[in-house]
């Protein structure tokens, strides 16, 4: 987990975003102590709801940079990912794919490659970049935890994108499970050795398949109106001149808030 946190911290720095404006909702598998030192606001939500918790944060205060970090993205939170991508909600979704549930012990999630769990997963895993891209996400990438520089660049880039970005990170679970998963004890090196960088590869071709190299890279990077863009466009057509567009105001300690600059109360009335 620590190379990812490291890359995350460096990515924030490189992006120019203030750590104080970054909110990190996460769910069960991701709760590293080190997050306390990053200077971000961290929310450990219930299983699978990090993306929707983040949607609430973002819409209530569009000035925030919201980065849901999820582990079981495709199980409990699968539908939320699909819909957040469709809406192009301004979130950077980081899916830490550790191939196992870190905390609960050896059980596979649907994003697990069948090769790594011989006894409990029988179906093909989700191809997360492809799923995100086909649902409307504007930025998709996948790296292993050892592709440090590329990962930092991707995080920095995605933090400044307007819309839903998804970065899948292949990260080792604790060594304890490597025996269960029947692979080399140094998982992260295993991922790195068996991966192949193919930037701009069609996301349809990047599924993690048995006996094939893991394709990593930045796959897609495009623009699309965000949820708030579409909301403002539609309502200004419906309501006309009287409509005040919904949008961010600068955050400050007492008045981080909602609405537009025209909001005379500045969000203080919460």
């Amino acid at each position: 987990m620590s190379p990812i946190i490291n890359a995350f911290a460096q990515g924030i720095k490189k992006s120019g975003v203030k750590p104080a404006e970054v909110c990190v909702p996460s769910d069960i598998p991701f709760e590293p102590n080190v997050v306390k030192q990053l200077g971000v606001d961290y929310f450990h939500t219930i299983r699978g709801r990090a993306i929707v918790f983040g949607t609430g944060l973002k819409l209530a205060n569009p000035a925030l940079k919201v980065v849901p970090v999820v582990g079981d993205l495709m199980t409990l939170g699968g539908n939320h990912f699909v819909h957040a991508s469709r809406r192009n909600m301004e979130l950077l979704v980081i899916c830490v794919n550790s191939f196992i549930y870190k905390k609960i012990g050896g059980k596979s999630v649907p994003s697990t490659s069948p090769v790594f769990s011989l006894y409990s997963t029988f179906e093909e895993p989700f191809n997360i970049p492809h799923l995100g891209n086909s649902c409307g996400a504007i930025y998709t990438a996948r790296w292993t935890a050892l592709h440090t520089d590329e990962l930092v660049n991707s995080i920095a880039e995605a933090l400044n994108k307007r819309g839903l970005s998804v970065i899948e990170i292949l990260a080792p679970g604790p060594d304890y499970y490597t025996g269960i998963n029947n692979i080399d004890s140094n998982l992260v090196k295993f991922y790195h050795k068996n991966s192949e960088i193919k930037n701009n590869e069609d996301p349809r071709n990047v599924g993690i398949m048995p006996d094939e190299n893991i394709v990593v890279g930045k796959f897609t990077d495009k623009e699309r109106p965000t949820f708030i863009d579409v909301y403002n466009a539609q309502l200004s057509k419906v309501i006309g001149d009287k409509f005040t567009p919904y949008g961010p105001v600068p955050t400050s300690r007492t008045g981080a808030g909602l609405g537009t600059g025209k909001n005379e109360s500045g969000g203080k009335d919460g």
Partner: protein
Amino acid sequence: MKANPRDVLTGVHYIDGDVAAGYGVLAAGCKFVAGYPITPSTEAAETFARVAPKGNAMFIQMEDELASISAVIGASFAGVKSMTITSGPGYTLMMEAIGFGAMLETPFVLLNIQRGGPSTGVPTKTGQADMMQSRWGSHGDYEIIAISPDSPQELFDYTIKAFNLAEMYRCPVMIMSDECVGHMTEKVVIPPAEEIELEPRRLYNGPPGEYLPFKPDGDFIPKMVKAGAGYNLYISGHVHDERGYPVTNEEFKSVYLRRLVDKIRRNKDKIIELKEENTDDAEVIVVSYGISSRVAVRGIEKAREKGIKIGNLRLVTVWPFPDEKIIDLAKTTKAFVVPEINYGQIAFEVERCCHGRANVVLVPHSGAGVHNPDDIYDAIVFAAKEKKKIEGIVEYKTKLEKLVFEGGFKLKE
């Protein structure tokens, strides 16, 4: 703090309860509603969606109720008043997050326009069978506040009160209305903004380094900050210490959970609102809430005409339950009659508080309709005549049930 005139549709309206609630949400200063359409609550969400741009507020139709409630909790931490609107099946889906919200001491409001259950039940008709679920639905120990309005006017008024209570006590507040009140059209008077008192978010204003998100502020209730304001928040659904960091030891758990329940229990007197009439020297007292309290009025009047000394206790606040009030009244009255549109939920709370000192007569109703006032009257007469103490609860059979179970009834096509 007064309401913002921009958010208040001052005037005399002729609207249904759902619409009144929608107007109340805006007037209360709510800036974020996430919901998923479900009969019979949809009109309340539709109404808010229509008026939200006027108040610079956001309505989003989420993919499901799991998403709606989680987004509402997120929005509350971003510093805005937020709520969700739902009914039966949606309410059940929200239960895990309601416990999460209570655990994080999140101020938010949930409007449940109850419908006939269980399961899909009768979506378009009324019920009052979610009352216990609102109190005990999520796992673990926690306390919430629940209010039960009985008219469109009250749906407006108590929606505002619900937001105020949520901010005051940092807890989820449920408005447990029902289809009948939600779809009932009546006169609703919306006062000018300066007559609407709102409770602002209790914000911490000190330096970031010293802020402890779960350190109570004298009255059991910690102050909040807005996310993204540089306080380096760590908020977790685990049992946590004052910093918000997870702890697993018994002492911490007992300290934390004790405060979580005591902040409501010790403030019961301030939270609970009851409407009481002639209870001092009553031989029978009708205890009711929501639509049943309006139906009961006819039964009560009829009993009074017949010379029965009858009292009326209406629970505006259902949770926390007014234990002390019932315990007090049980000392002087002979019996309580509890009409509710379920097979016994609040009646058992009344019986628990009576503890054998007075009889408790439940007038049940299956839902998909309201009581016949004559059934409530008959139960009152029965309770007034009964001389001996009856242990446990007396389940009074309504006329319809007698017909169904004792013969002579044919189902209409």
